[in-house]
Structure formats: C-alpha cells, structure tokens
C-alpha cells in the first residue's frame, strides 16, 4: 500500500521526464549528433569565419536591448491596469495585447510602411523615423512586439501575488505610494519579473521576421538571418551543417545568459496572504495623475500599434504598390486573392491545432510547474525552455530527423513541434503565479474536509485563473501565427495557414499578405474576446474589481 503511494508520488516527475525526453531532449540530441557527424568544417564555417563573431554580438545586443526596454514597459503597463484606478481599463488591456493578436509576419513591414521613408507619416506629415533600418529600429519594433508578453506574465503574477497587509502597513506607517511600489510590490514580483525577462530574451534571440526586414538593408546581420542564408544553400551538406550549428549555438548562448536567472527562480520567496487579494493602489493619488498615465499609455499604443496597423490596413486596401492610399485606389482584390483557394479551411485547421496545443500545454506547463517544486525536478523548467530558444526551422529539422520515418506527414509531428517550441510559454506564467500562491488557503480547505481535487478546483484554480488564461492565450496565438514549423512539417496537399501565407509572401504580394493578416487578426479577436470576457467575469466573482 505504501509502495503504491510512494510510486504515485513520483508519477508526475516520471511523466514529465518521459515527455521532456521525447519532445525536447531527443530532437536536440539528434541535432547535436548531426553536428558531430558533420565534423569540424561546419562548426568552423558557422562560428569562426569573418562575420560569425559579429552576428553573435548583434544577436545578443538586440536581445539585451529589447529585454531592457520591453520588461519595464510591460511591468509599467501591468501596474497601470492591475494596480491603479485607471479609467477604461478593459480597452487599455485590449490595446496592450493587440500586437500579440496581429501576426508577426506583417508587423515588420507595417512599421516600415508606417514610419519609414515614403511611409504613412512621411506622406502625411513629412515625418520619417531615421535609423529605422538597423539595430535601433529592430530593438524598437521588437520592444513593441514583445511587451505584451511581459505584460501578460506580470499581470498574471500581480493577480495572484498581492500582499495587501504589507502594503497597507507600509502606507499606514507613512510610506508614499512610490515607496510602496519600490520596496514592497516590485520586490515581491521578482518571480514573474524574472520569468518574463527570460521569455523576452529567448524570444528576441531567435526572432527572424523583424531583423530580415529592418536589419538586412542596413547590413546588420543576426544569427537567425545567417541561419536562413545557410538554409538557402542547404542542399549542400556543409551548409546544412552550418545552419544546425548556428541554431544550436543560439540555444547554448541563451541558456548561458539565462542560467543565473534560472537559478534565482529556483528559490521562490514565500507569501502569506491573510486578507483579500485586492492589494492597494500604487497609482497616483489624484485622478488627474491616473488619467495622465492612461493618456501616456494610449499615446504609446497609438504610435506603437495603431499607426502601423493603419498602414497595414491601407496596404491591404490599395490596389497596387505606389498608388496613393486614397479611396479612389481602394479595391478588395487583395482580400479576394488572400481568400482564393483554401485560406478559410487553412485558418480553421490551424486554429483547431492551436487550440489543441493550448490545452495540451496547459496540462504540461502545469505539470512542470508542479514538479519543479519537488526536490528532484528543479531543473525541469530550464530544460523545457531550451526548445523555445531554438529557431522554428531547426525544431522542424530536428523532428524530421528524429521521428520523420514514423511520424512524417502526420498531424502528430506538427503537434509535437508546437509542444516542444511553446512549452515554456505555458510554463512561465503558471509557474510565476504558482510561486506566490500561499499554501495556507489550500491547507485551510483541506482541514475543513475538502479532498485534494476539490481544493484544486475551488481554491487553486480560481486564483490561478488569470495565469491559466494568459498561458492558454500565449500558446494559442503563437501556434496560430507560427509559420516555419508548420510549413516545413506539412504533409503534401495539407493547407495550413502557414502554407497559404508563405505562398503569398513568396509571390511578393504584400497587399494580399496584409489582407490575410487582417483577416487572421479579426478572426483571432473574435476568438479571444470570449477569453477576455471570461477573465473579466472571474475577476468580478473573486471580488477583485474591474
């Protein structure tokens, strides 16, 4: 009897290890085997030739710059919507999350269309952003792109970690709101902050869409653009090896940079929540101050998201490039081109796959969050993030090499690719929130007679609800917008959204690409709106206020 209980206790760890091995470790191992088998030549070409060092430097600098800007931005926005009495909170939340809802493959060129020379602002007000091409532009655009990631993780953390008594005590002792923020709220947010920073850095390291559009014209190459170029020649074994070496180096680099970060995450602080979770407001005392902050956030949203989106809409509507974006030149031809063939079916198929991945990864992310708090599972969270840092084409290559003989041409191999790549996106928000869940609540319910599952259902999950919804939304959106893996792993004649999109891009049909992206965004908003409503309702029920 005790043996069975003992074994059951190790079951989550065992299951996690098995899945981790199959989904992450075996594919990575096969890639490593390819590099070793290819000999020193490909390593030499990839890492030690003239441009290699510069590409590495560029990649790390851009990633560091993006994280340094996006993390404070995401945190400030999260504090604004979750911890201050800002008006129009729901609309602000939607606006902040909008870049996540727009596919990344259009954000790159829509910034150029908006702010570049001969762009929207140039035409309207003769204002163009100098240096949009090059590292500054890449960092700016990626910051706006990835700030919502940080926002989601931190907001989920704020919703579960609140120490209202500590904050009230500080205020009662005479601390100003700023002091409370600095000395209590932010330090206690350490877990989600660090988790968000790790995700931002990893996402920025393996970004490709923005560096290609904004970096190549300035001669600013990154490791991902070099890898793409190597794949262009990968019919030659040497170039294929070069691409794999670059991909694995990205993972190693990111893992090295994030190692101290990961270690700090393994010693979570403890929380004692003795009151309701409202927390106290850290916003400005006067309403005018709050409105000012809300205004600042709105200006940021307009400039960072609104104008590029408008540029994208105009591109989709205007009949041909170079014609003035006035109604006389508008037509729906691009939408017709985008919908020609099986775009709707492709969208449906991709959405179903994304939903499935969302649910599966909720379970897997929760599993790892649970297991890494046990003595033997501590490094599981870091291992899970390894494949997130791996560029999509490398993940796909790894899976074909490892499992292609058995799973090639099936939907299973694409599903495994999503599991591998986005596992950490589900894990981090859940882990950050779980970090701060006080054990007293659960103990109280168990002492009152609730079973383990009842306690889970009625105590843990409602408190974690924002994190759960955030994790699901991240996985769903990333899976839906993912292009490379879906296209590389597709079975013949399978139309996924990626295949349709890439074909339009390859034809150079920017108008149709923009039209398709618009349709996908509208469809995504339609699908995500219920999630936001659910979140709203749940917070109301928990008395957290809107």
């Amino acid at each position, binding site marked *: 009897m005790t043996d069975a209980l003992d074994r059951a206790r190790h079951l989550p760890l065992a299951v996690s290890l098995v899945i981790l091995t199959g989904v992450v470790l075996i594919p990575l191992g096969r890639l490593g085997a390819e590099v070793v088998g290819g000999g020193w030549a490909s390593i030499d070409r990839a890492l030690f030739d003239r441009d290699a060092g510069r590409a590495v430097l560029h990649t790390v600098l851009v990633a560091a710059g993006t994280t340094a800007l996006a993390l404070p931005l995401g945190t400030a926005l999260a504090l604004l919507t979750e911890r201050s009495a800002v008006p129009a909170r729901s609309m602000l939340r939607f606006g902040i999350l909008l870049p996540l809802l727009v596919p990344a493959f259009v954000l790159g060129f829509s910034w150029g269309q908006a702010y570049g020379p001969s762009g929207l602002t140039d035409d309207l007000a003769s204002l163009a952003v100098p240096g949009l091409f090059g590292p500054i532009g890449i960092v700016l655009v990626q910051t706006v792109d990835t700030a919502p990631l940080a926002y989601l993780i931190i907001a989920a953390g704020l919703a579960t970690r609140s120490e209202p008594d500590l904050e009230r005590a500080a205020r009662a002792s005479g601390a100003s709101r700023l002091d409370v923020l600095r000395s209590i709220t932010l330090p206690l947010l350490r877990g989600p902050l660090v988790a968000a920073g790790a995700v931002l850095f990893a996402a920025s390291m393996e970004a490709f869409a923005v560096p290609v*559009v904004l970096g190549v*014209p300035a001669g*600013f190459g990154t490791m991902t653009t070099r890898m*793409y170029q190597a794949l262009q*020649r990968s019919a030659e074994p040497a170039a294929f090896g070069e691409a794999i070496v670059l991909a694995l180096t990205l993972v190693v680099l990111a893992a090295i940079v994030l190692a101290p970060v990961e270690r700090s995450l393994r010693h979570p602080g403890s929380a004692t929540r003795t009151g309701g979770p409202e927390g106290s407001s850290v916003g400005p005392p006067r309403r005018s101050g709050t409105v000012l902050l809300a205004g600042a956030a709105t200006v940021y949203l307009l400039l960072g998201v609104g104008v590029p989106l408008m540029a994208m809409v105009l591109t989709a509507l205007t009949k041909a490039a170079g014609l003035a974006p006035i109604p006389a030149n508008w037509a729906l031809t691009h939408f017709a081109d985008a919908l020609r063939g099986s775009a709707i079916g492709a969208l449906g198929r991709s959405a179903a796959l994304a939903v499935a991945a969302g649910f599966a990864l909720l379970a897997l992310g929760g599993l790892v969050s649970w297991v890494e708090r046990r003595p033997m599972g501590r490094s599981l969270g870091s291992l899970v993030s390894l494949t997130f840092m791996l560029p999509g084409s490398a993940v796909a290559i790894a899976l074909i090499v490892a499992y292609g003989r058995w799973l090639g041409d099936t939907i299973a191999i694409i599903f495994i690719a999503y599991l591998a790549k986005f596992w950490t996106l589900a894990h981090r928000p859940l882990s950050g929130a779980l970090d701060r869940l006080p054990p007293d609540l659960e103990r109280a319910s168990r002492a009152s007679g609730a079973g383990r599952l009842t306690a889970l259902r009625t105590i843990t999950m409602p408190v974690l609800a924002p994190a759960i919804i955030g994790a699901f939304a991240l996985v769903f959106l990333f899976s839906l917008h993912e292009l490379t893996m879906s296209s590389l792993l597709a079975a013949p004649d399978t139309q996924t959204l990626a295949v349709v999109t890439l*074909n339009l891009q390859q034809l150079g049909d920017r108008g149709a690409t923009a039209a398709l992206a618009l349709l996908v965004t509208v469809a995504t908003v339609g699908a995500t709106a219920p999630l936001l409503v659910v979140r709203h309702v749940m917070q109301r029920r928990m008395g957290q206020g809107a």
Partner: protein
Amino acid sequence: MRDGPHVLGRRAIAVVVLVVAVACGDDGGAAGAPETGSVRLYTSVSEETVDAVVSAFESNNPGVQVEVFRAATGDLNARIASEERSGGIEADVIWASDPLSMQAWDEQGLLSHGWTPDGASEVADPFKSEAFWGTRLLYMVIVHRKGVEPVPSSWRDLAALEYRGLVEIPDPGFAGSALAMLGYLADEPSYGIDFYRDLKANGARQVASPDDIVTDVAEGRADAGITLEFSGRTAAEAGSPVEVVWPEPGAVSIYSPIGITASPSDEEAARSFVESVLSVEGQETIAATGWAPILPSVEGPPVPPDATIVNPDWAGLFSRQSDLLEEYRSIFEG
C-alpha cells in the same frame, strides 16, 4: 487443341504479341501513360503554376494522383536534407526554382540518371543536364519608377551618380536569383565583383526579397532596382507606377529545373509527370500563369525584340558559391 497450321499461326501471333509487349515495356525513351499510380512532388515553384500543371496532368492521367509539398527554397532544401538523414527522401520528383540546389543533390547521388524525357531535346543545352531539365525561364532585369530620369539602360547605370542612394539590389544570400546575378556579373569582364563595390559606394541598399524591391521602387523609397521580370511586369499590370528595362549587356536568365529522385516509389508515373511538364501542353500551362516557357516553340510573356539575354555559368557558380557570397558580404556588411 489439335495441331495444325491455324493453331501454329495462333501460337506465332501470341509469341509476336508477347515480344512486342516486352519491347514496348521498357525502351528508355517514351514512358507510356500509366493506368494508376502516384507522384510525390516537392517544389518551390509558385502555387498557381504548380496547381495548374498538376491539374492538367491529373486530368490527362485520371488514375494517377499527384501529392504536392510546396515550400520556399530554403525550407525545401531543409526538408529534403532532413528526410535524407532520417531514412531516405520521400519525394519522387523535385521541381526547383534555380539549378544550384539540383546540382548539389545530383552531386550527392540523389537524382536518377539514365533516362531522358521526350521534350528534352528541344531544351537548349545551357538549361539542362543529365539528371534535370529546365521547365521555365526567369529573368533578372532593372525596374524603375515611371518618370525617373534618366532611364537606366545598363547594369552599369545603377552605379551612376544620378541614382545615388536610390538603388536597391537583392541580397544574394537570400535569393537564388540574386546569386545568379552575382555569379554572372563577377565573371563579366567589364564588371567583376568591383561593380558591387561601386554600387555600395553609390549608396545602394540590399534587400532580402527581390519582390520588396518592386514595392519600394513603386512607393518611392528607391528610384531603381534589380528584380525578377515577372514581379516588375505583374506590378505594372496591377497599376503600380513602375517600368521594366531589359538592360545591357543582358538580362540574366535563371532556369527552373525538374528531375526525378534516385529511387522514386513509382518510376513510370514520375517520368510521365516530368514529360508532361516538358510537353507543349504543360509549357502552355506554365506560360498562361505568367512565366516564360523553356520550349522555344511555345509562346510566353512578351520579350522586347531588341532585348539581350545572358546565362550565368551555373557549373562555375556552383563551385564558387561560398567564396562569392563571402566577398559580397565583405562589401555590403563591412
């Protein structure tokens, strides 16, 4: 059965029929239209063209099914390379957008030899090899915005002071067509790799995709650029204010080869498909989707009568790819 002259005659006829059947079965020349079968096609050719060719083939060969895997060149290469390392390529026919990858696969023994399709004799020599044959031609030309003065008429003009800072060229590391340009100009006596130095000194900007160049020229971010004739022509037809120039000393041609893999699952069907692409009907289908057919007898999109067309040395380019690219990168990325 009784022996007799008419029975002997029947036996003789049976033997003759048998011999003829065996002889027709495998003569290394024309492949007969297969009754049933399947072809697994891996291609980077644009969807519209592939769909048109495949549906024409399938309606002519009702029992044969064609499965198409489409991806851009880099992804196509990655897929084939990965499948090779996982137990063998699954493709039966590969249809690429430029010959460089095909040459690489041929060198590794991944394409089958010993058979020539029916239409191959009409394909000009620079556009075919023993294992793969060109199916259509793509041309690199100059595109400029309407009203730009003076109108560029040669590649050399792009390095002229009048276009300082207003010229865009495609990055050869990202597009095979741009690599073909690099290969041709590097060999051309009056140009060489120094021409790229002149371009860079004149403020030319590199762009990853040749199609983005057409958009940038149309929208005024550049005055002129190098791009595919197909992109320039279709943009102009859609209403963009751009014009295509077939420059001196010649527009650079790229051919799009098709070949059969070393061990296809259904050799007869694969051969039949390749032949259909090279047939008059297949070529007309390709021309109808906007590309220049390879057979001189089939009419394609209009080419100006005084236009010169030149071919890069593909074999030479194949062996010098990395060196050329490195030199280019040292010029454009410092």
